[in-house]
């Protein structure tokens, strides 16, 4: 059982490698079967990891038996295990959807998809900052290739912006890492949290520069305001299953901010306590505003969904800025909800756009859809969840976020902006829904109808059923989130786990 925490990295790695080898490399059908089976296993492993961490407590997986502050370590704590489970579930649904027709659009879809999942899982599980960089690169290089999957001018152009921005971001990441290593002498997150409070004077200022450079990089990944311009175009031009798995990538950035700026540079960091929060506050609120304006101005459903991703990123950034246990727990619940719903929304947008002929997903009058009833019901569920209306999970998530805002000064800023953004999303989505489903030109007969594949139904149903389920089991889930937040906000716990690992006692 102790190897459970490395399986979310090893399984996709070996599956991806296997998919490139002869028995699978030439036949699409075999690739599909192997990927689905492996992904199903990963979903099981993800949920098993959550349960295991709940019963056994946090576990450190020390690779190569090198003592923690020096060697590479994987940390499975409540937060990371939940995120891994969510990622695997999302990836499984996206894979189901891809078996419909999207995997035929270009070669190497499944191996790349597996490496993408490996990178995301690794980024969640890693216990030191340099491996965070390495896993970021793994997930990025897979995403570069997945983004151009299917080809086309629009994709190529979006990919250029995305690649150049992220390559520049990687350089900044390394600059930040170099500075932090130079000042702290360690890159293990738990060890950093311990040492950062000892910094004083000019060294502390240097470390602050490093930490803020990292904030810029994580901001780029999570679409924080001045760095979010790449997101709508990239997400809306990617093919549907790819866009769905991308929905979790912004969350990797938020998770890293929670980890680095919430814990290492958190309340107990001495001179450097909470250095990032004063930056995140205004930027998060502006991100929400810009996301809402973008959603209202979007001419097509995919762009609208992409802008809603920006909006949810802004909401999550507000939670990281509040920097309290309640806020972190709200962030975790909202993160799970928004990831799954945004993924489902991207898949749904693709289904809708394929049934509307040349109009695709643009908000114009077009021919009637082949299955308007089912798609309409799905769209309504997704829209209600995204907006944050009862009875689905978006409502509970938003209430948790609003409740976690404590002081009156913060409430004056957060409440109106967050509630108005919900109103904006409501307007944008109801306008989208009425145009897409109710306004069609009656004269035009449907041409050759494209039947919807079983796997595609399955993918959308899985993701959209998550929202009612999240609402139904909100009690136990929010307790889980509270646990995770309590753990994250008590750095002593993770340091203790670091020191009491069996190897540390025995020495080298």
């Amino acid at each position: 059982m102790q190897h459970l925490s490395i399986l979310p990295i090893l399984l996709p790695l070996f599956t991806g490698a296997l998919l490139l080898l002869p028995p699978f490399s030439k036949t699409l059908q075999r690739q599909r079967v192997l990927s689905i089976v492996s992904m199903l296993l990963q979903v099981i492993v993800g949920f098993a990891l959550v349960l295991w961490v709940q019963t056994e407590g946090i576990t450190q997986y020390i690779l190569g038996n090198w003592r923690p502050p020096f060697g590479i370590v994987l940390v499975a704590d409540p937060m990371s295990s939940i995120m891994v489970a969510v990622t695997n579930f999302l990836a499984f649904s996206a894979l189901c959807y891809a078996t419909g027709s999207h995997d035929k659009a270009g070669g190497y879809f499944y191996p790349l998809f597996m490496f993408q999942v490996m990178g995301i899982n690794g980024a969640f599980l890693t216990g030191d900052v340099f491996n965070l960089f390495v896993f970021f690169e793994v997930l990025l290089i897979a995403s570069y290739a997945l983004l151009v999957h299917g080809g086309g001018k629009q994709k190529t152009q979006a990919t250029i912006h995305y690649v150049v921005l992220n390559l520049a971001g990687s350089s900044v990441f390394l600059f930040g890492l170099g500075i932090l290593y130079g000042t702290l002498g360690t890159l293990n997150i738990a060890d950093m949290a311990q040492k950062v409070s000892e910094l004083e004077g000019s060294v502390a200022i240097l470390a602050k520069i490093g930490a803020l450079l990292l904030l810029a990089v994580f901001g780029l990944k999570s679409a924080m305001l001045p760095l979010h311009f790449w997101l709508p175009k990239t997400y809306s031009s990617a093919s549907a299953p790819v866009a769905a798995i991308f929905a979790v990538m912004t969350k990797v950035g938020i998770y890293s901010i929670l980890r680095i700026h919430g814990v290492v540079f958190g309340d107990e960091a001495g001179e450097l306590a909470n250095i990032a929060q004063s930056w995140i506050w205004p930027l998060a609120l502006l991100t929400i505003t810009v996301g809402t304006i973008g959603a209202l101005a979007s001419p097509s459903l995919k762009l609208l969904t992409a802008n809603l991703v920006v909006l949810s990123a802004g909401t999550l950034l507000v939670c990281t800025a509040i920097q309290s246990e309640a806020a972190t727990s709200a962030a975790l619940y909202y993160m799970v909800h928004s990831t799954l719903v945004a993924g489902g929304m991207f898949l749904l947008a693709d289904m809708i756009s394929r049934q509307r002929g040349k109009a695709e997903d643009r908000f114009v009058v077009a021919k009637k859809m082949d299955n308007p009833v089912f798609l309409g019901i799905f769209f309504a569920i997704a829209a209600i969840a995204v907006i944050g209306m009862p009875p689905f999970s978006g409502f509970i998530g938003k209430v948790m976020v609003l409740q976690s805002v404590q002081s009156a000064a913060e409430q004056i800023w957060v409440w109106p902006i967050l509630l108005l953004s919900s109103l904006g999303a409501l307007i944008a989505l109801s306008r989208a829904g009425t145009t897409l489903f109710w306004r069609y030109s009656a004269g035009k007969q449907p041409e050759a109808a494209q039947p919807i594949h079983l796997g595609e139904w399955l993918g959308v149903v899985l993701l959209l059923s998550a929202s009612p389920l999240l609402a139904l089991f909100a009690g136990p889930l929010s307790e889980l989130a509270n646990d995770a937040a309590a753990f994250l906000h008590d750095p002593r716990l993770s340091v203790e786990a670091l020191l009491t690992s069996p190897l540390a006692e025995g020495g080298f």
Partner: protein
Amino acid sequence: MEGIYAFCVGLMTACGIFLTLRGRTFSVVVGLTLLSYAVNLFLFASGRLKLDAAAVLGMSEDYGDPLPQALVLTAIVIGFAMTAFAVILAMRARADLGNDHVDGRIPQTKEEVRQKSGGQR
């Protein structure tokens, strides 16, 4: 030594940023390469600069920090792969979009647009 080293890293970073901000993909790729070289040197220096210090224990009295060297090695490999990918992508974009501008089209001044009012792009 530190002064020269810092100056070189700074100059390389400045050149890298300048080139990355240019409009054509070629200079952007060169800029990103320069940036990754600069960052490699910077990472190397984060373990402090020392002369006659082996990174292996017992080889000399004064020993260097081996961790930044391991980090640099990883960063070099990743940077190299990324540069290769960026080059291929730039070529693909040149073929797909018909020009080598990062935005996919060459920006025109108002003057040019007025002159070519025949509707040509």
